[in-house]
């Protein structure tokens, strides 16, 4: 009897969870259908390619941010990590030397992991507020990227950009395919591994997680490493898209990644949410920006609209939570 009741509860909670997600994706669907009906240029092949390649860097960085926010933390250094990645890529690639591509990938990913472990270390061992700690480390990383390349420049040769920008069937760029693969990977990690369950446990209640025998510090360090690593990959995608490096190119991505996670319905209260929600958030934000461009809204108004939409979306998702 008791078990039956429990199962019923589980089932109903599962259903409400899915109802939540369904309504989120319904909004996305309505936006897409509405835009395709009323804006002819939205249906064009060029626009779809554009949407995909614009979505990839922000999506990748938002995936990483999801990890941090689930543990009630935040990673404000992701933008700086992206800039650093573009700067390293643009300066270390040598058009005459194909091997340089093989060196750049491990270099960027290694540097990102190092930054992530530093963030995780100071947050968990020194008990620093994640917001302050990552803000400070972001400032340090910004300084380092300015040291490497003080102005936008450098050059990403074709052999590097091809691995991100080649369009399959003339529509789908490789970068968005990497993004989809990484969504699946992060979904698997968060929902089907011991590490993922610990991430949720820590987000739910850190003290109880500690009492339950979870090594909280270790998990937190891994969380910030994951977040930085994904920011590094996002930086590679951005470098390929710009075909150059820019020491401040990533700065706008920091807060948009947070916004995307929150629009998706993952909240700062922790222990809930996931990458599938984040994907919806990324879709909504990129669709809105592209649609505003297509219908010719002045860029000045776009700032106002983006602000309004973020507020409405976050309030909406937090109300549903409550």
């Amino acid at each position, binding site marked *: 009897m008791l078990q039956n009741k429990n199962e019923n509860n589980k089932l109903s909670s599962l259903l409400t969870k899915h109802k939540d997600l369904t309504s989120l994706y319904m909004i996305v669907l309505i936006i897409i259908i509405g835009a395709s009906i009323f804006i002819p240029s939205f249906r064009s092949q060029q626009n779809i390619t554009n949407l995909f390649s614009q979505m990839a860097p922000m999506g990748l960085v938002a995936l990483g941010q999801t990890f941090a926010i689930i543990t009630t933390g935040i990673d404000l250094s992701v933008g700086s990590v992206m800039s650093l990645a573009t700067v390293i890529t643009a300066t270390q690639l040598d058009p005459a030397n194909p091997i340089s591509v093989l060196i750049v990938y491990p270099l960027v990913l290694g540097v990102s992991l190092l930054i992530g472990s530093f963030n995780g270390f100071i947050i968990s061992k020194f008990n620093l507020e994640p917001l302050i700690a990552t803000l400070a480390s972001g400032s340090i990383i910004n300084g380092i990227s300015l040291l490497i390349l003080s102005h936008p420049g450098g050059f990403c040769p074709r052999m590097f950009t091809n691995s991100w920008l080649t369009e399959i069937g003339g529509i789908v760029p490789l970068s968005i395919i990497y993004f989809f693969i990484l969504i699946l990977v992060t979904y698997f990690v968060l929902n089907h591994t011991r590490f993922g369950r610990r991430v949720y446990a820590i987000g739910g209640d850190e003290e109880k997680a500690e009492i339950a025998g979870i090594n909280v510090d270790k998990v937190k360090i891994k969380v910030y490493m994951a977040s930085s690593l994904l920011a590094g990959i996002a930086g590679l995608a951005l470098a390929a898209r710009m075909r150059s490096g820019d020491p401040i190119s990533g700065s706008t991505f920091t807060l948009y990644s947070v916004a995307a996670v929150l629009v998706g319905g993952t909240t700062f209260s922790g222990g809930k949410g996931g990458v599938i929600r984040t994907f919806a958030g990324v879709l909504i934000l990129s669709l809105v920006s592209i649609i505003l461009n297509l219908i010719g809204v002045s860029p000045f108004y776009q700032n106002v609209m983006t*602000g309004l939409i*973020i507020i409405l979306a976050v309030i909406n998702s937090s109300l549903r939570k409550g």
Partner: protein
Amino acid sequence: MHLPLINKTLSRNAKVFTSLILVVVVLFAISGIFNPRSLSPSHILGVVRQSAPLGISAMGQSAVILTGGIDLSVGEVITMTNIISADMMKGRNSRTIPVILLLLVIGALIGGMNGFMIATTNIPPMVMTFAMSSMVKGGYLLYSGGAPRGRVSPFLRYIGTQRFLGIPVTVIVYTMLIIAVLYYFQKTKWGRSAYFIGNNPVAAEYAGIPKTYRLIMIYAFSAMMAVITGLILSGYIGIGTFDVGGDSYMLNSIASSVVGGNTFNGIGNVGGATIGALIITVIESIMTSLGVAETGKLVMRGVIIITMVTLYMGSIDLDKVKKFFSKEGGPVKDAQGN
């Protein structure tokens, strides 16, 4: 029963201020080594004047941080103030006061909106103020049509650039403002609530503090301080431009506030932010005189924030750190032996 707690807080603030003032003295001594002339009173006052805009915005930021929030709209409000004040004053003294009053009202509305939304919905302060900064940016871009013009009145120029009896007028205004703000946050019922709300929101609610009104007040205060920052900067620059450096004020005000000993749970002092701002300004000026480029400043800012906050936490679990470095006494293994 309450007494030990109060004593502890008082002693903590006293400790923080002593160490902060020591840091300032040491920094001035260091800059004196590099350049003996930099120890002259007039130069020191000059440094204080330089730190004034940052200090003012940091006081507003501190009030918000003490309640557990954060205000990311500071930077854009500063730029907005510069654009609107230059455009509306058109170099006329007679328009100074009305324009300043108008800007303060706009600031109060922007901040009040932030506070209202944060208090009444579940929206995180970071997202609300970020979205607000995006809207404010759109607003001033529309207002100026992308090309800012005009210049501020001579009176504002006087406040921003001149000296009265050898003391920069900015410093005089700054001092009066600090006194007013300290009085408000230390002695009045409304001001004290910033600490209460941050320290224990539930207890504050039970104590009958109207959280919504107080949060509206605190965020409005932060935005109005940003407006005053913008006015002083405009007085210094003289014309309307997008390059007043609003962005850097957003981060630096958070840094100053945190270096000044404020935490996200209502422990600290709004006035501490001014010393934090002074420290950051002095370090930047030492860096500049040493010929260190932007890199050094950014790295230094990060290192200072991390060091100071680590020291304040006072709760570096030494055992934890030791455990981390010695493999034998490693962390407790969990159930799965991992």
